[in-house]
C-alpha cells in the first residue's frame, strides 16, 4: 500500500477526524485520514443521542463550555452548506421536585455564564404554554431554545465526502500501530504500510490515549464510558417536538451525566437514553439486559410526566425497533484535550471528545486548523471548492424532483428499501461516492436502507447483490461490517450433507 509522504495524517474518522479533515481541506496540504474500521464513523460518533447541546450544563471555564457554545452556533450554516438534516428543536429539562428546581436555577446561572443564548427557567404555566400536556407533578422546567438534533453520521459522512472532493485521502481498515519521531516530522506505522508525515492529528476516540502515549510523555487516560439507547418507531414522531430530559444527576464517581432523555431524531424515529457505565474493553459496544431494562424502567416510571403521555397513555414497549450502545471517550482530565503536545511538536491532540463532543467538534476543528495553518504559514488552496456535491435522497425529493430524477436515471424507479423509500440509485450513489460504501452497514449508514421497521429483512439481500456487482466481488464475500462478517458466507453445495 502506502509508502508515501503526506503533510498531515489524521488518525480516526469520527466527528473529530472528519471535522479536522474538512477544515484542513481548505489549505494547500496533502492530507490522509487513517481509520482502523471498515468504514468511517464507527465509534461514538455513530452511537449517541444526536443532540446538539446548548451548553447550559457545561462546567463554566472549561474547554467543553467554550467549544460547546461556539459549535452550537455553527450548526445552522454548517448543516445547510453540507446538506445535512438538522433541527433546532430546543431542549426542556423538567422538574418534579424542589431539588430539581434548585438544580434548574443553578443551570440557568451556569448557562448565562457560559454565554448560552435564550435559556429560561419556566414555571408550570409557561411550560404548558410552550410544549403542552406535561404531567401533573411537573412543577416547571428549564428551556434551552438553542439545543437541536442532527443526524450525526450524515454529518460525518458529509464532512468526509466534502474533504475527499477537495483532495483529502481516506484509508479504511488502516489501524495505526506505532508512531515514531523522524526528523522534522513523524513516521506512522499502520497495518498496511508506513507513511512519513510532517504533522499528525490524533482524533482516535477511545484510542486517543494510546496514540498520544506512543509519542508524547504527557500521558493521559481515556476510559470507555458506555451509553445505551433505544429507538422507537416513527409513528411517535408527531408527539415529540423538543428534546425532553430529566434534570441531570450526579454520578457516584463524580462528574455528571446528562441523564435520560427522549429525543426526536431528524429522521422521525424517537431515541431514548442514555445510561452511563464505565467498561474496560474499548470494543465492547454490546447492549446489556441491565442497560435496556434501566431505560425501559425509567420511561415506564416517568412517562406520565412527558407531553407524549396525553396521546400515548403508557410506555409503548411494542414500538421499540432497536437498541444500540456507544462508548464515550472519557478523559481522566475531565475536559477536552486540544492542541499541540508540548513535547511533540507537530503532533496535535483532539482527544477526550465526549459529550458535548458532537456539538463542539466543528468549532474545535475550525479553530485548531486555522491556528495550525497560521502557525506554519500554510496558504489556502485555490482549488478548494466550498460547496459539497450532493444529490438529494429520493426519499426527500418532491414529486417534481422525483419525476425529473427518474427521467434521467431509471434506477430511481426501483425501490430497494421499502420501509425507508431508498431506491437503487441511492444505493449506487452510496457505493460510488468519495469514501464510498463497501459494506452493508456502510450502505445503511449512507442511505438508511435497513434502518426501518423490518430492519433490513427485505432489502438486505438486494443490498448484498448490489455491493457484489458494483465492487466486483462474489456474493459470499460481501460483509456486514468488514472482514469476518460475511452476510452469506456459504454457497449451497459448498459443504457435504452429514
Amino acid at each position, binding site marked *: 500500500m502506502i509508502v508515501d509522504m503526506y503533510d498531515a495524517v489524521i488518525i480516526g474518522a469520527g466527528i473529530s477526524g472528519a471535522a479536522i479533515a474538512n477544515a484542513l481541506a481548505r489549505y494547500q496540504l496533502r492530507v490522509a485520514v487513517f481509520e482502523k474500521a471498515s468504514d468511517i464513523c464507527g465509534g461514538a460518533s455513530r452511537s449517541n443521542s444526536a443532540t446538539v447541546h446548548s451548553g447550559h450544563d457545561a462546567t463554566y471555564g472549561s474547554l467543553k463550555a467554550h467549544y460547546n457554545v461556539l459549535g452550537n452556533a455553527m450548526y445552522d450554516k454548517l448543516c445547510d452548506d453540507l446538506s445535512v438534516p438538522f433541527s433546532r428543536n430546543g431542549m426542556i429539562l423538567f422538574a418534579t421536585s424542589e431539588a430539581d428546581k434548585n438544580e434548574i436555577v443553578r443551570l440557568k446561572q451556569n448557562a448565562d455564564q457560559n454565554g448560552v443564548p435564550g435559556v429560561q427557567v419556566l414555571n408550570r404555566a409557561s411550560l404548558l404554554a410552550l410544549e403542552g400536556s406535561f404531567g401533573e407533578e411537573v412543577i416547571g422546567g428549564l428551556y434551552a431554545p438553542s439545543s437541536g438534533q442532527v443526524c450525526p453520521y450524515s454529518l460525518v459522512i458529509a464532512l468526509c465526502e466534502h474533504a475527499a472532493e477537495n483532495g483529502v485521502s481516506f484509508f479504511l481498515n488502516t489501524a495505526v500501530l506505532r508512531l515514531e519521531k523522524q526528523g522534522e516530522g513523524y513516521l506512522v506505522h499502520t497495518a498496511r504500510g508506513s507513511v512519513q508525515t510532517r504533522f499528525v492529528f490524533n482524533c482516535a476516540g477511545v484510542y486517543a490515549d494510546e496514540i498520544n502515549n506512543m509519542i508524547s510523555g504527557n500521558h493521559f487516560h481515556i476510559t470507555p464510558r458506555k451509553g445505551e439507547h*433505544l*429507538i422507537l418507531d416513527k409513528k411517535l414522531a408527531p408527539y415529540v417536538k423538543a428534546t425532553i430530559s430529566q434534570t441531570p444527576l450526579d454520578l457516584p464517581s463524580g462528574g455528571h451525566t446528562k441523564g435520560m432523555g427522549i429525543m426526536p431524531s431528524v429522521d422521525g424515529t424517537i431515541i431514548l437514553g442514555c445510561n452511563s457505565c464505565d467498561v474496560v474493553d474499548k*470494543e465492547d*459496544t*454490546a*447492549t*446489556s*439486559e441491565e*442497560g*435496556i431494562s434501566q431505560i425501559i424502567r425509567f420511561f415506564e416510571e416517568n412517562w406520565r410526566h412527558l407531553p407524549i403521555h396525553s396521546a400515548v397513555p403508557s410506555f409503548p414497549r*411494542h414500538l*421499540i*425497533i*432497536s*437498541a*444500540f450502545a456507544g462508548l464515550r471517550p472519557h478523559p481522566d482530565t475531565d475536559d477536552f484535550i486540544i492542541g499541540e503536545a508540548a513535547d511533540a511538536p507537530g503532533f496535535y491532540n483532539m482527544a477526550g471528545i465526549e459529550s458535548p463532543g458532537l456539538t463542539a467538534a466543528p468549532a474545535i476543528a475550525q479553530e485548531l486548523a486555522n491556528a495550525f495553518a497560521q502557525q506554519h504559514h500554510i496558504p489556502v488552496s485555490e482549488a478548494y471548492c466550498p460547496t459539497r456535491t450532493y444529490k438529494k435522497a429520493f426519499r426527500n425529493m418532491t*414529486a417534481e424532483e*422525483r*419525476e425529473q430524477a*427518474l*427521467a434521467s436515471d*431509471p*434506477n430511481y*424507479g*426501483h*425501490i430497494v428499501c*421499502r*420501509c425507508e*423509500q431508498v431506491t437503487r440509485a441511492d444505493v449506487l450513489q452510496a457505493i460510488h461516492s468519495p469514501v464510498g460504501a463497501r459494506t452493508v452497514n456502510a450502505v445503511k449508514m449512507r442511505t438508511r436502507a435497513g434502518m426501518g*421497521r*423490518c*430492519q*433490513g*429483512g*427485505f432489502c*438486505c*439481500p438486494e443490498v448484498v*447483490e448490489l455491493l457484489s456487482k458494483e465492487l466486483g466481488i462474489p*456474493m*459470499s464475500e460481501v*460483509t*456486514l*461490517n*468488514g*472482514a*469476518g*462478517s*460475511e*452476510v*452469506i*458466507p*456459504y*454457497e*449451497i453445495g*459448498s*459443504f*457435504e*450433507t*452429514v
Partner: protein
Amino acid sequence: MKKECIDIAIIGGGCAGLSAALSAKQAGAARVVVFERAPELGGVLRQCIHNGFGIHRFGEDLTGTQYARHLVDQIRETDVQCLTSTIVLDLSAERVLTVMNEDGITEYSAKAVILATGCRERPRGALAIPGTRPAGIVNAGTAQRYLNLEGYLVGKRVVILGSGDIGLIMARQFVLEGAHVIAVAERLPYSSGLMRNIVQCLDDFDIPIYYRSTVTRIVGENRVEGVYLSEVDACNCPIPATERFIECDTLLLSVGLIPENELASQAGLALLPFTGGPAVDDSFQTGLDGIFCCGNALHVHDLVDFVSIESEIAGRMAAQYTLAPTHRDCEVVHVHDGPGVRGIVPQIIRRNAAEAQVTLQFRPDTRYGACYIEVYEGENRIVRAKRAVLTPGEMVEIKIPRAKIHADITVKVTTVFT
C-alpha cells in the same frame, strides 16, 4: 405525471393479490391491475420450496412454488395487467394510487382497491435482545430467500429462536443442505407451529426444542460466536440461574409476523392492535369506501389455502362494488372477541347481504383440548360448535348462518368442563 383510470387496483402480487384478481375477473370486473414490488409474481410463495400447500384449495399437495405457478398460469389466461418491479408509494382514501417503476411515476384512480400487501417478520431490534450486533443474526424468511432464491446459506451452526413454522421449515432445510441445527428455543410452553413440522423438521433430525426458553444475549464481534439461552418463568421473565451458553455462528429468528400496512395507514385506516390489520366487514371492505383488504395484510394466516379462499371473496366483492356501487349497507352488526378469542375477522357483518353464511376466523388465546366455540347475541347463544383441539398456531374458522344474526355478537371459547 401520467394518469390512468382503472376499475380495480390490487396492491400485492402474492397469493392474496392473484387470487383476488382471478376472482374479480370471474365476477366480471373490467380493468384490473396488480402492482407487485418484486421482479416476479408470487410473493413469499416464490421462496417456499417445501410441500403442504393446496391440500384444501386444490386437493393436491403442492410446493409453494407450484401453488404460485398455478395462480400465475391462470392469470396469464386473463387480461389482468400485472406490473412487477413496481411499487405503490402512496394511497389516498379516495383510491388514488401513486405508482412507480423504472418507466416513471403514474397516478392511478381506481374504483376499488384491494390491499394484499402481506406481512414482514419481527426483527431482533423489536425484541431488544441484548448483546452485540454481528453478522449471523437473520430472520428465518430472509434466510429462506437467500437459500432458495440466491443459493446461499447464512451459516453452518444454527440456533433458532421461535418455533413458528418458518423457523421449523428452515431447520429442516439447513440440515438437508449440510448445516448443523443445534437447538430451537421457544418462549411459550408449546410450539406455535404445526405438529407435523415438529416431527418432520425437528424430531426426524434429533434437533432438540427447549420450551419456555429464550435467547438472553448474543455474543460475537464480527460474526455470531454464540448465544445465551435462559428459561423463562410464567411472566416471560428470564430466570438468571438457568442461563447457559450455546456456541453457534447463526441465530435464526422466527418470532412473529406483522402485517405490512403502511399504505393502509397512509390512506387513513386505523390498524387493530391484535391483528395488525384494518377492520373489515364480511365482504372484506374496510372503513374506507371501495378499499378492501385480504390475506396476511388483514391478519396473519398459517395456510395459504385460506388466504386464497378469503381473497377470492374480496376479489368478487370488489368486482361487485365496481359494477354496481351501492350505498354501503347501514345495517351492520359488530363482532367482538370474547374469552379465549383473539383477533376475530371480520369485525363487522352486513345484515342484509346475499350470502347465506358468514365465515369468522380467529386465533385462540392458548391451547385447548375438547372445547366449544360459542356465539352469543347478548344473553342468547345462537351457535355452538364442538372442537377437539384448538391451538394459537392454527387459525380457527366457524361458519354462521346470516339469518341467525340480528344484533352484535360475541364469540368465545369454552372448555367442555366449564
